[in-house]
């Protein structure tokens, strides 16, 4: 048991300070996308909704309805339309009201 104790002391503390302080490892985590409304034509939004394998994107008239809760951050929408989609960098996504996770993103007026 002494060996474990010495080894532990030598390694030091690895515990994160999160949530009191940010954790540097967070920058490599996959995160749900953010969309660029200026690049979201109706056609592009339709393609994105069809590509999403998790049902997180839906086209509703002139709005892209985006359910962050269903998103798996798989990246397929970003691969489909790189100009319109990029990583949000947000991983602190807990919600106390389900509708807080549903984002309605306006499309470009002209398609």
């Amino acid at each position, binding site marked *: 048991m002494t060996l474990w104790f010495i080894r532990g002391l030598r390694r030091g503390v690895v*515990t994160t300070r999160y949530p009191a302080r940010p954790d540097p*490892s967070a920058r490599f985590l996959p995160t*749900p*996308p953010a*969309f660029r409304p200026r690049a979201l034509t109706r056609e592009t939004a339709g393609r994105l909704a069809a590509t999403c394998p998790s049902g*997180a994107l839906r086209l509703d008239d002139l709005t892209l309805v985006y359910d962050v*809760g*269903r998103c798996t951050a798989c990246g397929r929408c970003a691969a489909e339309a790189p100009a319109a989609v990029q990583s949000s960098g947000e991983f602190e996504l*807990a919600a106390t009201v389900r509708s807080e996770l549903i984002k309605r993103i306006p499309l470009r007026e002209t398609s």
Partner: protein
Amino acid sequence: MTAEELQETIARQFGRSLHIRTLDTGSCAVCEQEIRLLAAPHYDLQRLGFFFTPAPRHADLLLVTGPMIRAFEVAARKTYDAMPGPKIVVATGACALGGVYPADPFTHGTVDAVLPVDVWIPGCPPSPLALLQGLGVAVGRLAGKVRDLPFTVDDDPERTRGDS
């Protein structure tokens, strides 16, 4: 004491010592691995006053993964019913929030079809950091961020109205 004050007192108590029962309603096993890592040295949820418990009778919070497979519903309800109030239900992972599997003969597709969910934590899987934030929000120690995140990128600086 009013109901609100009682609620706040309870939330404050949970914030200092919370016992968590996990529930797998049909996950792919990766969410469970991230949840196990909450007790690992890098994250150590016990330093925040959170503990895992195998007994639903001792639990304050039910941490649910998976798309609520219909064949599992009885076990899910029994676990929830065995927890004495006050209790909090947290659904975590894209499967539990309605992603990956739609409602069909095999699964409900979302945990809140069967259990009353109080907090939703997205991710596939949600990392231990995301889970810690979610637990903090669940006990009222952390403010949720996601309501005010627009998830839009607006390159044009002349556009003043935010999108949401």
